[in-house]
């Protein structure tokens, strides 16, 4: 719906690896480089795992964590094409779609997830009621939230996250924050949730609190490029351009440009350029193009 087929890196040493899928698991479990994990997963789905929805789902997750949203969307869509019962693919896809501004598609994705997850749930037929899609899906999620024995006791944290995304999409940041905070109570080590909380805080104007949430995410997972990107964005927004540049360059350094030239992170480069412009350094902005040698910036910035 948004992209078409996934584009693979052309230069990938994992294509020669005997078991790239197992190697990808190892890299992920050990908190290794996301770019390496993505390459291993790309090799896996180009080989024996081409019809494995779970492998595609993992590739999508890794690319989103690595701040490569359009690659993430394509991989996650492929996972659901292969198997619409691949439940863990739905929420990450909805998140990526919201980030890309495809809100209605994100809500539809969450609705599909809810139907798969709670097949017995009586979901309102919103089309007949001519309701706003987002409101309709929120209603369904609230029904799901109460469905456990009819009372709102231990809420399914996935339902909380889904609701968080729905509130976030409608600009209801306070409610979204509540959802992510309560989901974190049952999953305090979930770095994705810390980042989602941070992004919601940031977009509701609470940059300082957001920065603290991003740091929690990075403490748990230091290679989490997206949290580093978000940290850069918050620094830009509070006017700390030098710090922003250092976070963004740090994130780009993790990409290891020599091994990743097809799926570049447009958002990282764009925000880096914008930071340079704000520092009145158009000379550096001109250099900040995908594929640039990051060593050119080392003299002036620590990363």
């Amino acid at each position: 719906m948004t992209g078409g087929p996934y584009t693979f890196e052309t230069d990938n040493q994992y294509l020669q690896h005997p078991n790239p899928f197992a190697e990808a698991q190892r890299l992920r479990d050990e908190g290794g480089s996301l770019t390496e994990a993505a390459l291993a997963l790309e090799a896996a789905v180009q080989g024996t795992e081409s019809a494995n929805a779970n492998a595609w789902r993992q590739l999508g997750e890794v690319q989103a964590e690595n701040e490569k949203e359009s690659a993430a969307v394509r991989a996650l869509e492929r996972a659901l094409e292969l198997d619409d019962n691949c439940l863990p693919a739905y929420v990450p896809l909805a998140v990526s779609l919201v980030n890309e501004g495809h809100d209605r598609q994100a809500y539809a994705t969450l609705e599909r997830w809810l139907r798969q997850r709670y097949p017995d749930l009586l979901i309102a037929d919103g089309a007949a009621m001519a309701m706003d899609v987002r409101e309709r899906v929120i209603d369904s999620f609230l029904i799901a939230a109460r469905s456990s024995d009819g009372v709102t006791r231990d809420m399914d944290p996935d339902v909380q996250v889904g609701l968080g995304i729905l509130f976030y999409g409608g600009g209801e940041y306070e409610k979204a924050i509540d959802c992510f905070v309560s989901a974190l109570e049952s999953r305090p080590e979930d770095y994705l949730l810390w980042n989602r909380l941070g992004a919601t805080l940031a977009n509701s104007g609470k940059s300082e609190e957001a920065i603290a949430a991003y740091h929690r995410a990075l403490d748990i997972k230091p290679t989490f490029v997206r949290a580093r990107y978000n940290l850069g964005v918050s620094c830009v927004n509070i006017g700390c351009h030098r710090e922003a540049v250092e976070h963004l360059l740090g994130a780009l350094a993790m990409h290891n440009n020599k091994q990743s030239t097809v799926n570049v992170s447009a958002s990282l480069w764009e925000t880096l350029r914008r930071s340079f412009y704000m520092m009145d350094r158009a000379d550096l902005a001109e250099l900040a193009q995908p594929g640039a040698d990051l060593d050119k910036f080392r003299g002036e910035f620590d990363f």
Partner: protein
Amino acid sequence: MASNTRVVLKSQRYGKDRVRLVKVIRGDNGWQDVVELTVRVLLEGDFETSYTHADNSLVVATDSMKNTVYVLAKQSNHVGRPELFAQELGRHFLDTYSHVSTAHVRILQHRWARMNVQGRLHPHSFRRDGDDKRVCEAHVSRTDHSRYRVDISSGISQLLVLKTTGSSFTNFVRDRFTTLPETTDRILSTVVEAEWRFHPAYLTAGANAREDRLTDIDYDEVYQAARNITLNVFAEDNSASVQATLYRMAQQIIEVAPDVDQVYYALPNKHVFTVNLEPFGLKNTGSDATIFMPFDDPSGLITATVVRKSAAKL
């Protein structure tokens, strides 16, 4: 006389100002368009000796600059899009004179609206439909021996507007210097000066440079959108202050124009106060106020720059 160790020439630029130009663009079947511009060209470069040693050997006469404006206007297809004409002029001076380091071109476009005669747009008659000007600036400078940096901005100048209600001003600091009463209903009038900036572009020197990054931007559309937003927000916003209204205008321009990252407004508050008619036994305050007196001086002056913010990702 020539050498004086106590002073140094800190900066200099010179050129021709107020070059007036009308271009007629002839279309099919007698259909014609007209563009009226006022152009200023200022050059920076190795002209120090003309100031310090009365040496004119490197000086390009400002009269020649004026001639250049007309020659390029004759040859250019960009005159109807002043942003592109401005950068074309700027690049020409850098291409032609190797000792020019930066060219600053500022163009005012005057309004000529096609006349509507008996319900039909007239093919060659126009009327002035407003004193406000479209302004644009292009600054072209050398980054090294083969590349230019081009900074373009556009704006609105001298757009005079007034609304008779829908404006209040309350809750401001009250101290021993305060005499202004709070008001929930006042006349609001301003002369809009606005400027929006595009990202710099980098081009190779010479006439065959690829201009895609510049020509891909629809400057006319951004200008129309910005002018409409300015007018709509001014009219529709229930103004709590000039500051709050200004911010809404700038915010909306950045939202609709992806190529724009920065918007500046300067809005003088042209005060129009009620006249005291009490000595004549006439009510002229609050909802009875109908007679006012505009004050040219002093005026408030509210300025702000609003920039695009990056969004965090879930």
